[in-house]
């Protein structure tokens, strides 16, 4: 671990004594309890402005200490974990919404702004920020940018990269640059697009210009309950085939239903094998028509029940089941390992069946909750971490699920990123030349070995489980994924 003591004094001079944390006992208080993050940084610094970030980065760079940027710490792939020690630069003090521009439908915000706060602030103009990760009450826009986060409603509206026009960044030499801007087109390479999704390895975002959308005038939410998972999968394909791209299509299997029903009384009938939650929004005329079309499609797959929310209260109730799953899985097993992968949506039925087989093979139940509309799966392996053999089987099952996703024409991660969690799986998708081309980005940004080293690319080390419990706890009560 690098010796940071001389650096600490420099950092104090930059941000003030209160905003540098480096004694082990203080770091523990600062959310690093070792059990959930498994790695302790050498120090944490909380800059309050772009200028301070720049000075901090320069000082760390001179001292040869690597930097890990951190937002709310809700990332699920270990992106903010300082695995090699070094300096954590926490952006949570930089949480001002600098500007909301209702005429141009954009906002300029600092990186530590919590995702939901942007929409809350924009609401007075009838606008909102579309990417809505389920962690949106806690996660920061800086983290969203780094992970290119999505959310249940990204099916129709796209993910973070589709909604960020530009950003100010601090590069690894401490210099400050604007990538993109306030306008839709800017000349030169799309560095904005490269930094988004780069998991904190290329640049630290210090200001972000986001697009705002008009709040839809109408929203309609439907719940369709099926006996079998296959019927629900077919209904998803049927909806897309009808030329409808709803705002969201969420799906849950019988394990999820079994866990959540007693906990939240969502009203799922006994014997239900799968639940679909479909939401459409937009102009009221379109919403009415699409909703009835979706209902018609669902009816052709012999549902046990279809329910449409008549008001906001009922809509919340329909979502409550979906949102309650994660918390309720604890009823089925002490731990879950939630895998994130995407497959072509037409292959849902076959892949879900294979996942069940994988569960059988390893003797572990696998609960499936998914952003079904875009094929983004979250199979959750249920296990007990106190049993080392179960832990081993869980990791193997997880690996097989990822292999399955790639084999089915899909990918390693739909929204949680590679980080530490999946770096060893990268060769499933990319050969050495592909990765060599990707690996040229960090030297071009001058950030190699300086920003978030040791992430994304395979290291040859054995895969260690990335505990999600810490991130989920930080998201607060009612966390869902």
């Amino acid at each position, binding site marked *: 671990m690098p010796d940071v003591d001389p650096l600490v004094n420099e950092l104090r001079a930059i941000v003030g004594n209160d905003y540098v944390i480096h004694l082990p006992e203080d770091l523990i208080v600062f959310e690093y309890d070792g059990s959930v993050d498994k790695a302790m940084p050498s120090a944490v610094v909380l800059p309050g402005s772009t200028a301070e970030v720049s000075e901090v980065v320069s000082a760390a760079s001179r001292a040869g200490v690597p930097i890990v940027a951190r937002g709310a710490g809700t990332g699920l792939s270990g992106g903010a974990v300082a695995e090699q020690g070094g300096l954590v630069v926490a952006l949570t003090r930089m949480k001002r919404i600098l500007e909301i521009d209702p*005429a141009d439908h*954009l906002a300029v915000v600092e990186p530590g702004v919590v995702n939901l706060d942007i929409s809350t602030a924009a609401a007075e103009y009838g606008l909102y920020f579309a990417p809505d990760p389920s962690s949106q009450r806690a996660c920061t826009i800086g983290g969203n940018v780094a*992970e290119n986060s*999505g959310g249940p409603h*990204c099916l129709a509206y796209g*993910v973070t990269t*589709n909604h960020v026009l530009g950003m100010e960044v601090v590069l690894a030499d401490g*210099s*400050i*640059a604007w*990538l993109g801007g306030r*306008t*839709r*087109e*800017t*000349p*030169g*390479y*799309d*560095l904005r697009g*490269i930094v988004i*999704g780069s998991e904190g390895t290329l640049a630290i975002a210090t200001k972000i210009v986001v697009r705002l959308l*008009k709040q839809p*005038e109408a929203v309609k939410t439907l719940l369709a309950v099926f006996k079998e998972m296959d019927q629900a999968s077919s209904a998803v394909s049927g909806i*897309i*085939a009808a*030329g*409808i791209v709803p705002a969201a299509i969420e799906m849950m299997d019988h394990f999820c239903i079994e866990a959540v029903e007693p906990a939240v009384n969502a009203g799922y009938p006994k014997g239900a094998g799968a639940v679909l939650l479909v939401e459409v929004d*937009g*102009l009221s*005329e*379109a919403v009415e*028509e*699409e909703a009835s079309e979706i209902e018609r499609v669902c009816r052709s797959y012999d549902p046990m029940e279809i329910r449409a929310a008549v008001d906001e209260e009922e809509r919340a109730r329909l979502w409550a089941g979906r949102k309650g799953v994660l918390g309720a899985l604890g009823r089925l097993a002490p731990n879950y390992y939630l895998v994130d992968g995407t*497959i*072509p*949506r*037409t292959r849902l039925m076959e892949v879900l069946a294979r996942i069940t087989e994988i569960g059988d093979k390893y003797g572990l139940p696998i609960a499936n909750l998914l952003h079904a509309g*875009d094929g983004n799966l979250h199979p959750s392996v249920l296990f007990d971490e106190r049993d080392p053999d179960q832990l081993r089987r869980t990791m193997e099952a997880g690996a097989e699920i990822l292999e399955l996703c790639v084999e089915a*024409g*899909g*990918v*390693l*991660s*739909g*929204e949680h*990123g*590679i980080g530490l969690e999946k770096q060893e799986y*990268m060769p499933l*998708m*990319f050969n050495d030349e*592909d990765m*060599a*081309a*990707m690996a*040229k980005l960090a*030297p*071009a*940004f*001058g950030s190699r070995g300086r920003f978030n080293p040791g992430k994304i690319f395979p290291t040859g080390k054995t895969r260690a489980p990335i505990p999600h419990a810490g991130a989920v706890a930080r998201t607060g009560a009612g966390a869902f994924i």
Partner: protein
Amino acid sequence: MAAWGADAAELVDAVNGAAGGPAACSGADAYGIDGVTPKVAVRPAAVDAVSAVTAAAHRAGAAVTPWGGGTRTSIGNLPRRYDVALDLTGLDQIIAHNPGDLTATVQAGVTAAALQRTLADHGQFLAVDPPLPESATVGGALAVGSSGPLKWQYGSVRDVVIGMKVVQADGAVTKSGGQVVKNVSGYDVARLHVGGLGTLGVIVEVSLKLTPLPAHETTVTASYGSASDAIDAALDIFGGGTAPLALTVIDASAAADFKDLESGACHLAVRFGGRPRAVERMVSEAQAASKRHGCRRIRQADGAGAASLWRQAADFGWDTATRPTVGVRASVTPASVGSLWAALQRQGTAPGGRTALVGHPAHGIVQAHWRSDGAQPVDEAARAFIRSARRAIRAAGGKMVVEQCPASAKAGLDVWDDVGDQIAVMRSLKDQYDPRRVLSPGRYVGGI
């Protein structure tokens, strides 16, 4: 490193050898850029051959420019070196269209029109409308990175790409992304190539996100006495409750070039798509907004009439009939379109030519075209137009690129806008991906 010094015959041999036979096109003349003709033009029919040609050029220190439909090769600074035209229209396969997944994977040389026809058979389309789609290739449209009017609703050109295969400057073939619509596995390197004008790699294959064709479409066209009224109406609709697919303002001078637009007036064309009842309501709201801003006449067009209008709007400035002497594309925020427009229009009265403006206020794009009347020395007048356009665009807080300009007027001119502090990273990207300056040297921002 040395530029290609040996004679053309040797380069032709190397390229032919790499392409696995006499693949070089005979008429290299057809591939001129800004008056510079390459020594050889080659049209490989497979990715491997593209790789071999690029590798051969890399070894030889020759400069290669990827070539799609050749519709927008006027974009860029004067080529510093140009030895090989790499025509990609031989890569014309639609590899897969998965209607149920709303995705397709195509080779870069497929024309936009051919792809749209295939997709339309399944009620889908790619939400990108480059000019001259019968010639423009998908790879070329992505390399240029800017598109036509159809943008506000569906996002930018870059947003349709979900995966990409690229031939690197040294011939290595690499891929990124995937074939699914939601993916964060590894760096999104395709972003470098969308809008990168082929200066960091040759796009050979792309996976694309598709959109269902709207069930119903219609276009409302309103004419105004002044452009500022048309722009105000456009912004009114932009800020209102409806969601047009496209929103385009055409000034009186540009309208003269449109087949079905009454000349002597400015026009606002609004394209709506969706469920019939929703479209009906959007139309009546657009009509109301138009009236509020004093429009003179409103017309509505469907089918072929509307298609022709939007075709002309996307082609404007690129087809031979409307090609300007100088074409400037500006990007500002929506609220600044009005003031920029007024400033640009004032230039129209300058002697030596005629200015025509077409803009898409909802995403802040304004195309300013100047056509010389031939009376004055063109270069000087062209530079003067560019200078004052640049001033106006800067004052409006925007960015610009000169897309068309006589080659003779390009000497000493940077057609790109200043990219600010990012330039250092952009240069080092070029160092990383193309250290021998094989790919279109000199044509990109900052002389990259």
